[in-house]
């Protein structure tokens, strides 16, 4: 089977000129926590919260959703391998506040309520967070992690954003 890497190398040759084939760099070992494995940073409650929030923010539609793309595992890797202790603490505190806020809006444990109640609770919380000045709960930052992680996965980048490796041309004004 031809790999994406081999296709790329072929393209570099076919476009002409480039005599040197790059090995495309060393493939980094992407350190997401795999589905089914225990989280390395999150507690089980935090992991469940991140999973449910991610699923509600970017659900499966005609294209894969955040959970399909293993966004919770990606974020667990991010917190384990990238974040310093200050960021870790801030993230943990934010998740605690978000959980408390969502529990209140859901009139129960946000992790246990029905999908429709959870969606309504997060929807109203999201609207409030973007209506206010600042980011008191840290929710916007968490949403940023969810979104950036999703679009950094192959599912999010290629299926949703239509990212292409080699555009090959510049068109400054494409009508939508």
């Amino acid at each position, binding site marked *: 089977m031809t790999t994406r890497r081999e296709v790329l190398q072929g393209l570099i040759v076919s476009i002409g000129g480039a005599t040197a084939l*790059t090995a495309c760099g060393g493939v980094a070992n992407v350190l997401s926590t795999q589905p089914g494995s225990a989280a390395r940073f999150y507690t089980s409650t935090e992991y469940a919260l991140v999973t449910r929030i991610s699923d509600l923010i970017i659900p499966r539609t005609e294209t894969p959703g955040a959970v399909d793309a293993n966004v919770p595992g990606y974020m667990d890797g991010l917190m384990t391998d990238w974040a310093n202790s200050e960021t870790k603490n801030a993230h943990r505190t934010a998740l605690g506040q978000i959980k408390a806020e969502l529990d209140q809006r859901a009139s129960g444990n946000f992790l246990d309520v029905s999908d429709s109640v959870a969606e309504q609770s997060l929807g109203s919380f999201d609207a409030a967070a973007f209506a206010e000045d600042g980011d008191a709960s840290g929710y916007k930052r968490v949403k940023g992690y969810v979104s950036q992680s999703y679009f950094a996965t192959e599912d999010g980048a290629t299926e949703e954003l239509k990212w292409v490796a080699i555009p090959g*041309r510049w068109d400054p004004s494409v009508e939508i």
Partner: protein
Amino acid sequence: MAEFDAIVVGSGMSGGMSAKELTERGLKVLVLERGPEIIPERDYVDNLAPWESPNLDNVAQDEIAERYPKQYGGVAYAIKESNKNFWVRDDEHPYEEAEGTTYDWLRGYHTGGRSIMWSRQVYRLSNLDFNANKTDGYGIDWPIRYEELEPWYEKVETFIGIAGSAEGLPQLPDSVFQPAFELTDAEKALKAVVETTFPERNVIAARIAHLTDATEEQQSLGRSNCQVRNRCHFGCSFKAYFSSLNATLPAAERTGNLTMVHNAIVSSIEYDAETNRVTGVRIVDAETNEKRLYTSKVIFLNASTIASAMILLQSKSEAFPAGLVNRSDQVGRNLMDHVSGAGAAGMISGFDNQKVFGRRPSGGIYIPRYANLNGQDKPYLRGFGFQGGSSPLGNAGGQIAGIGRDFKEAHKNPGPWRINMLAFGEQLPNPENRVTLHESKRDRWGNPLALLHVTYSDNERTMQAEAIKDAVAMLEAAGCTDITTNDASLSKPGNRIHEMGSARMGRDPADSVLNSWCQAHDVPNLFVTDGSFMASSACQNPSLTYMAFSARAAHYAADLIADGTL
């Protein structure tokens, strides 16, 4: 008997061009590079997809604090997990800042130097710039005018390849161009309004060292057209943007006259008082600490502005107790960069039904200098240009309201357009802005640390304050809303990575280090053709000018060797 005709110290932007021109003249050339070798096939990481780098390709926060505090603080936009090896580790390559000052010394130690990480904007200087010191009395008069440099600009541009558009502006002479990257409709709208409302101002396509119509010569070096990926800071497997690693070093290599030695940190230059010639270069091997001497007929210093000055200061002898070719006491002084930080951005309406295809590299628009073109008409001396561009906001950062399908769908439409501009201004030459050798601190190879002392003057502060007002006025004229300005602070000295001036050229050996050929007044077989020679900074990105002077100096040196003078 010298081992080489020429030694070039440094393999970056100017060193690569020196090596190319010298080897093509048939001279045997040794290039000394202080860092390790970069092999594109092995070390470029431009073909990694987003999902092939961990953690959003971010460098771990603790690692930044420990290893890259200065580099990352200066250019966070360019340093990622996958390409961090292109930047020096601050903990391994420290420097000192004079009390009360701060300096961003941003570096890459490897084949090609910073030419593999640069942002590739290239503009010629004009006689407005070469006359500037003489006109207002800051610094010393350039010993050269535009007409003498023009053919060397043409020669260099034809080789490196520049995408841009001919505009006929006297303050920003046209280069040899390949097709420009077309402006977006939002940029065209800004251009129309600005050029009508402010007749002395122009909005043009940024001029960038990217191939858009590769010549046979460029293709013969394995270079091809830009694929519009904007992965330039990671290397380019298509060799579409100019770097010495992509172009000048391969050109030098194919002459058969090039020898390259890596991990060779220059400690000093040998000087023979009897003949009044430099005779060789002493190095320490970065990996083994072995010390070696290489000899040659001529030496080109292209180690970068700060490092070249330090090598001269480190090369003390009876004849030059204050450092080689430093009788004028100007080595290390007049250190300049471009001053920036002033800018504005705003939302521009009318383009929400548009998006772009491709990821345009290195900016979109340039607004050439318009201040003080015909006499002094501003509350500051000299001027600045704006770099900028427009793009849809995009939503991938997640900072829009909504959840669920609507939120997800919002990413298919990139949203409203934002247009921005950032001033790059001239910094006046000031002999008190300088690099010296630290009195006691040394690096792990025994060489003194750089001690940097650079501050801005009122002229730079006033200029940047005015630049913000001008940027806002242009955005307002274009009907922009939600205009924001970044007026909190100026860029740190060094942060634009355009350092220059530490061995200025001039007519008088009493107040300058080099003559108009970048040749040391005091020692005729020593040339310095990196940014050190610059007598003023102008406001244009300087790499093109360094290369034009390097090519010119290389041919001059080759002539002197050919006629037996050197």
